Every structure is written in structure tokens, then in C-alpha cells.
């Protein structure tokens, strides 16, 4: 449990080693480079690497795109890059070989991407054709070309009219104000969606009149001009669609043909990603005509090694700088194997600052205990521990963060198993139900007896215990704050902010325990000797007095000082609500157990003989899977809350900046170094 000491280093070296030094640092992944601003008149400049950087980022992205297309058109098991993705370990020599061949892979990717592009174009054409076919649908019965203007003596009017018309109505509308019988034919092609498609043929001399008549009825020519007979045009479109589909299939084949290149594409994507990163950094490095400067943080214990390496290999001048403001110093945690697994819990609240305590190890212990109490079922605990253990063993190359997370839940699973047996829960009351239903054990006999006691039989007793655990948790938090004050040699604050609170609270608790109120709530009787009663009173009063007088000690005005002290004393109510908050340990523990019992009961209610067994197994598996998922989520959320709100509230303020060394940020692969 510690925060790693950091050392600021400055490196100055000949420009010809620039790339080599950056590459060395990148593969060591040990130094966080800070991007210093340069003075206008120092004569130093920065290189413009924007173009190179963009180029490599684009390449990394196009390899990524190619991989995505491959997983789409030639799926294989290795494509999944989800939470449990294992980055394949690839030997350095193999990567170097691939990098040497990179032009070859670039050409391949260009082919894949151009295939994708033409696929998209074909898709566009298909879309357009399909729309055209749909718009031709009402005209399918028309047997003359749609662009037909008429013959030498006749005029042909093709279009649509809103509303549903019969041929007689159409004829009447077209021949309005014309002598009977008018020389025109009016035919309805189709009537769809409240519009009627019509063809009207009339003599050329009547054309103007007829067109006017039709326009009054709402006649309009088709918005999209179509050349040819509709059914033939549609047939042409269909042929084109088929052709396009064939092209798309061919292109898919082309893309799928590269399926064996996946690994290389992964290497190349990561290679270009690293290279883009290097150029981004290069653009921030101040340099003169012959030398360049780097500045950054390294773990203090590695500082000498790095300095030696830089001097020996590249003739660089390395200096240790003054660390300056501790707030600038990046934070890296170092913990033992167990506590490491809870680092992410701490990090998602915020890392500690330098000079403060890293509470990970202490928090991890409480985390695992509280999680166990909330899930509190031996069966669920075993399932959880087994599942995480199997994942951890089978997938050794998983992302380190994921591995730690799984490890945390492995420990939580063990703790859950422990508390399950303490409370007598194994998939709820599964053992008892099975014994009563099938093995003829009398129903008033408990088979799996709790090692401690069953919460539902005496919830009040467990509630008191939960609050005791909470008090220990909170007192530990206060203790950590006291430790920090002592480390800073602030004895006055230690006495007045920490010891006084311990005295005050302990005094109050000792006064409460023998009282009638506590007895009636918990059913427990404490009898203290007389001196103990006066001792607890003195303890509480002295504590309260110190808080009253000392809390506002930085104020000169005594009135304000006492008022602040009184306000601080009022803070005892927040202790009360904090302690009550631990009642969730009981509530969630009960929730798991009771719901599990409901599932077992439902499973054993129906059927008889073999059918009963089958129903029980089905209900058991479905029900408990659901219950374990929901309650594990609840336990996770509320364990976090107890740490973040109650525990951290007593002493912890985050604000540390995570150590972010310059390194290969590989997405797909990891490098196996060979010696």
C-alpha cells in the first residue's frame, strides 16, 4: 500500500538520436513525458509533425476497418475484442518481419477498402433502382411507352389524378364542354393510394381543351420521366440489381480472400498507432539546430537506470530536476497481489495525492467482507469464485485491468461462500427443500444449519452486528486521517479532530449500551459496573468539550470559534446516518436469501415423480441465474457506495493524477520479447 515515488528527469541529446531515444522510451513504457511550453526567445523550435501523424493515424484506422470488414464477411472466433479479449502474444521477430513487409500489407488493405467502396456504390445503385421499381408499380399495366407523345393526328396524355375515378368519370371529366360524342379515349391504368393513373388519347386539335379539362380535375404528369414501356423498364432495373448483387458478392469474396492476413493487419494497425503516437510526441519536443530536450516523470527507483541507459547508449545529458509542486507529480500505486485487485475501485473514485495515504489495501479487505455479507449465499459464492477462477486460468493474456477486476470478484466469491455458510444459505434453502421433498426428511428439521445464525430468524440481532461492522469501518477511516495528521506532525489537530471524536463517540456508545432504550431494541442486556458509567460520561463530555473549543481554532473571535465548534458537534448526526447506512448489509443479505427460497419453493410446488424433478431443475437454473445476477449487481453497487460515501467521507479526498507513461498503446496484440 503505497504511492510510488516519482522523479522528474530532463534529457538533452543530439538530434540524430531523437527517434531512437523516443522509440526506446516507448517500448520501455516507463516515462511520462510532459509537454513543456518553450520561450519565444529561447531559440528553440518544435517540429511540425501534424502531417505525418495524420497519415499514420489514417493507416491505423484503415487496417482497423479492414479487420472489421473481415469479421463481417469471413467471421472467425478470434474476432471478438470484447471484455475478455486476449491480445495474442506475437514474437518481436515476427512483428519486425511484418513491419518490413508493410508496403505489401498497405496494398492489400487498399484493395479491401476499394472493394468496400465499390460495394457501397453498388448498394447505392440497388437502392435507387428499387425505388424506381416501386414508383413504376402503378404503371405496370400500361402497354405503350410512358414517354409516348401520340401519333400524327392524336395526342397522348399520361399522368395521374388524385382520387379514385372510373373510366366513365374520367371520360366525363376530359370531355367537358365538348360536343358529344367527343373524339377521345380515356382509360384507367390503376387506382392506388387515392390516386388514379390515367391515359387519355385525343385528337390533336382538341388537345388544348382536353388538357385544360384534365388539369381542372387535378391531372399531373409523372414527376420522374420514364422512357419506355413500364414493365420493360422495370425488368431492366431488375437485371441491373441482379448485376450489382453479383458484383457485391464478388467483392465480398475478394475481401474474404484476405482472411488469413488478420494477424498481420492487427500487427500493422498497432504498429501505425504507435508510430502516430511517436510523431505526436515528436511534435511537442523543443529542439535547437543540433540538440533536443525531453522532460518527464519516471518512478524514482528507475531514474538512475534510465539516466545510465540514455548516457551510455545515446550520449545524452540527463539531469534530475526538482520535483516542484507535488500536485503535478503523477500517481502510480503499488500494492500486494490481493490489494492490487481493488485498485480500479479506488481509481474510479479518484487516485490519492502524493504525501497522502493509499487506502487500497484496507479498503480491499472491507470491500470483500461487505460484498460477501450482501450476497451471502454459499452456492452463489462458489459459482462466482469458480467462474472467475476458470476465466483467469484459461485466459492468461487478458487485459491486466480485466484480470484484476476478475480477481477482485474471485475474492468476493470466496467471502460470499464464507458468509453463506455463516448464514446457512446454499442456493437459498435448496438443500433443505430437496431433503424435505425427495428424501423424506421431516419438514421441521433443518439439514444445513447456519454456522452463526439465520438472519431471518433474528434480523434485529444481525442489524446490530451490521452497525458494529459499520462503526469499525468508519473508525478505521477516521484512524487513517489521524495517521496522516501524525505523519504531518500536527499533534493539535490529531487530538482535537481525531482523538476527541473517538472519545466523544465511544462515550456516547458506552452510555447507550446499558440503557433501557438499547435493551428494548436489541434484546441484549449490558450491565456495566458503576465506574464504567461515570467513565463513559466523562469520556463523552471531555470529547465534546475539546470539539467545541478546538474545532474553530483558526478563528481569533471566540464567539465564532465556539459557534463553529457547536456546528461540528452537530456533525454527530452524520455519524448516526452513516452507521444506519450499513443496515444495507442486512437488507441485501436478506434479499438474496429470501428470493432464493422463493425460487426453490416455486420449483418444488408442481408436478410429481420425474416431472417434478425436471420442473425443479429448470426453475432452479433459471431462477438462480437471475437472482445471482441481480443480487451480485446490487452487492457491487452498494459495496462501492459504502466505500465511496461512508468510508472515504471520513478521510479521503482524491485529486491525484494517474501516471500515464509514453508507451505502445496496442489495441490488438502484445509483444513477446525474445532473448
Amino acid at each position: 500500500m503505497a504511492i510510488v515515488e516519482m522523479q522528474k528527469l530532463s534529457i538533452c541529446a543530439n538530434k540524430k538520436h531523437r527517434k531512437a531515444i523516443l522509440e526506446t522510451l516507448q517500448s520501455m513504457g516507463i516515462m511520462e513525458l510532459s509537454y513543456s511550453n518553450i520561450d519565444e526567445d529561447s531559440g528553440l523550435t518544435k517540429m511540425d509533425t501534424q502531417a505525418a501523424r495524420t497519415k499514420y493515424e489514417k493507416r491505423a484506422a484503415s487496417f482497423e476497418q479492414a479487420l472489421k470488414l473481415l469479421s463481417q464477411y469471413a467471421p472467425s472466433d478470434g474476432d471478438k475484442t470484447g471484455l475478455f479479449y486476449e491480445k495474442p502474444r506475437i514474437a518481436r521477430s515476427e512483428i519486425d518481419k511484418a513491419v518490413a513487409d508493410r508496403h505489401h500489407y498497405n496494398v492489400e488493405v487498399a484493395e479491401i477498402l476499394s472493394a468496400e467502396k465499390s460495394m457501397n456504390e453498388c448498394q447505392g445503385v440497388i437502392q435507387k433502382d428499387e425505388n424506381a421499381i416501386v414508383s413504376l408499380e402503378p404503371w405496370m399495366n400500361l402497354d405503350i411507352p410512358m414517354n409516348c407523345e401520340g401519333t400524327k393526328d392524336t395526342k397522348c396524355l399520361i399522368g395521374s389524378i388524385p382520387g379514385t375515378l372510373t373510366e366513365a368519370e374520367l371520360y366525363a371529366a376530359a370531355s367537358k364542354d365538348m360536343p358529344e360524342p367527343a373524339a377521345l379515349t380515356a382509360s384507367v391504368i390503376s387506382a392506388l393510394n387515392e390516386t388514379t393513373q390515367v391515359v387519355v388519347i385525343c385528337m390533336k386539335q382538341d388537345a388544348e381543351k382536353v388538357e385544360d379539362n384534365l388539369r381542372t380535375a387535378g391531372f399531373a404528369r409523372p414527376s420522374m420521366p420514364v422512357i419506355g414501356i413500364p414493365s420493360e423498364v422495370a425488368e431492366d432495373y431488375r437485371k441491373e440489381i441482379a448485376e450489382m448483387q453479383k458484383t457485391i458478392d464478388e467483392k465480398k469474396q475478394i475481401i474474404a480472400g484476405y482472411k488469413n492476413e488478420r494477424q498481420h493487419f492487427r500487427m500493422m494497425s498497432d504498429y501505425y498507432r504507435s508510430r502516430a503516437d511517436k510523431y505526436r510526441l515528436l511534435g511537442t519536443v523543443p529542439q535547437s539546430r543540433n540538440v533536443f530536450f525531453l522532460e518527464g516523470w519516471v518512478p524514482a527507483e528507475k531514474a538512475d537506470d534510465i539516466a545510465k541507459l540514455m548516457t551510455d547508449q545515446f550520449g545524452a545529458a540527463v539531469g534530475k530536476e526538482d520535483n516542484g509542486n507535488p500536485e503535478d507529480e503523477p500517481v502510480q500505486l503499488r500494492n500486494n497481489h490481493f490489494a492490487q485487485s481493488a485498485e480500479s475501485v479506488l481509481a474510479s473514485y479518484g487516485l490519492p495525492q502524493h504525501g497522502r495515504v493509499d487506502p487500497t489495501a484496507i479498503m480491499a479487505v472491507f470491500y470483500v467482507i461487505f460484498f460477501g455479507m450482501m450476497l451471502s449465499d454459499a452456492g452463489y459464492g462458489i459459482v462466482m469464485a469458480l467462474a472467475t477462477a476458470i476465466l483467469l486460468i484459461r485466459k492468461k493474456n487478458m487485459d491486466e485491468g480485466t484480470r484484476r477486476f476478475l480477481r477482485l470478484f474471485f475474492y468476493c466469491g470466496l467471502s460470499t461462500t464464507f458468509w453463506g455458510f455463516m448464514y446457512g444459505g446454499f442456493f437459498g434453502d435448496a438443500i433443505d427443500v430437496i431433503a424435505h421433498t425427495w428424501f423424506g426428511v421431516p419438514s421441521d428439521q433443518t439439514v444445513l444449519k447456519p454456522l452463526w445464525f439465520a438472519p431471518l430468524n433474528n434480523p434485529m440481532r444481525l442489524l446490530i452486528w451490521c452497525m458494529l461492522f459499520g462503526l469499525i469501518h468508519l473508525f478505521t477511516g477516521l484512524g487513517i486521517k489521524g495517521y496522516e495528521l501524525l505523519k504531518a506532525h500536527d499533534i493539535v489537530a490529531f487530538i482535537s479532530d481525531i482523538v476527541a471524536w473517538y472519545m466523544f463517540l465511544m462515550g456516547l456508545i458506552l452510555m447507550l449500551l446499558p440503557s433501557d432504550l438499547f435493551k428494548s431494541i436489541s434484546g441484549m442486556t449490558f450491565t456495566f459496573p458503576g465506574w464504567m458509567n461515570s467513565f463513559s460520561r466523562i469520556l463523552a463530555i471531555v470529547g465534546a468539550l475539546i470539539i467545541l473549543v478546538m474545532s474553530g481554532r483558526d478563528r481569533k473571535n471566540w464567539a465564532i470559534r465556539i459557534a463553529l465548534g457547536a456546528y461540528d458537534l452537530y456533525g454527530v448526526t452524520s455519524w448516526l446516518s452513516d452507521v444506519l447506512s450499513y443496515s444495507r448489509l442486512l437488507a441485501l443479505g436478506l434479499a438474496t436469501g429470501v428470493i432464493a427460497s422463493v425460487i426453490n419453493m416455486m420449483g418444488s410446488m408442481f408436478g410429481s415423480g420425474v416431472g417434478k424433478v425436471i420442473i425443479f431443475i429448470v426453475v432452479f437454473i433459471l431462477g438462480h441465474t437471475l437472482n445471482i445476477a441481480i443480487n451480485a449487481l446490487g452487492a457491487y453497487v452498494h459495496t462501492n457506495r459504502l466505500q465511496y460515501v461512508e468510508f472515504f467521507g471520513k478521510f479521503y479526498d482524491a485529486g491525484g493524477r494517474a501516471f500515464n507513461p509514453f508507451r505502445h498503446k496496442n489495441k490488438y496484440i502484445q509483444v513477446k520479447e525474445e532473448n
Partner: protein
Amino acid sequence: MSMGMVFALMGAALATALPGVGSAWGVGIAGQAAAGVVSEDPDQFAKVLLLQLLPGTQGIYGLLVTFITLSQIGILGGNPVTDTATGMLYLFACLPIAIVGLISAYHQGRTSVASIGLVAKKPDQFGKAMLFPAMVETYAILALLISILAVTGI
């Protein structure tokens, strides 16, 4: 069947019905927000799903109280309630989780919606985003506790 049984069963029914309504409501609105986020960024699926599920616990707490009540009033076990007063005791014992479950689940759902928005913008702040809905749930837990203590104490 006595009037007491009617009241007791009414309490048991309310304990599941009201928090169930609240949870369905809360999970519903959170689910709409979650689906919106996933449509933009499918990688956030697991995170927003967890946030969506948070308002679902009230329904389970209600079920829990109902089950304990049913096993005490002679429906799933225990002795049948014979007098009206005892029945009303069960009814009132069920009310904390019934009322608080309904309202807290709705508000937890709304907080989940906000947290889902937070995760959409800053996926690395998931730990904190999860905390806001969990704060609302505290009061459902307190209500559950009192209901359990009351029902088992009768």
C-alpha cells in the same frame, strides 16, 4: 375467512404491486435512455445496462416483504390471521416498502437516465455515475428494513 386476513393480504399485495410499478417505470425510462446511448456507441452496452437495472431492485424488495408476509399469515405457512387488528398490523407493516418503493424507484430511474447521459459523454466516470442512483436507493433499503422488522415482529 376473517377481515384480518383480507387486510393482511392487501398489505402483502401492495408490497409487491406498488414497488413493482415504480421499478417498471424507472427501468423503463432508464432503458429508453440506454437504448439511445447504445445506438451511438454500442461499446457502452454493459455499462448502461447496469445503470438501467439499478431502479429494478425496489420491485425485488417488495417481493421480499410480500413473501415474508405470506409465510406468516397462513397462506404459505404460519398461522392464519383471525382478528382484524392483526390484519391491519400487517397492512401497515407493508406500507413503508410499498410507498417508498414506488416513489424511490421512479426517482432512481430518473437519476439513472442522468447517469446514463454521463457515461455516454465520459465512459471512464462509470464508478461515479453508478453512485448517484445508488444514493436514491438508500431510502428504499431503509423502508425495506423497517417493513421486514415490523412484519417479523408482529
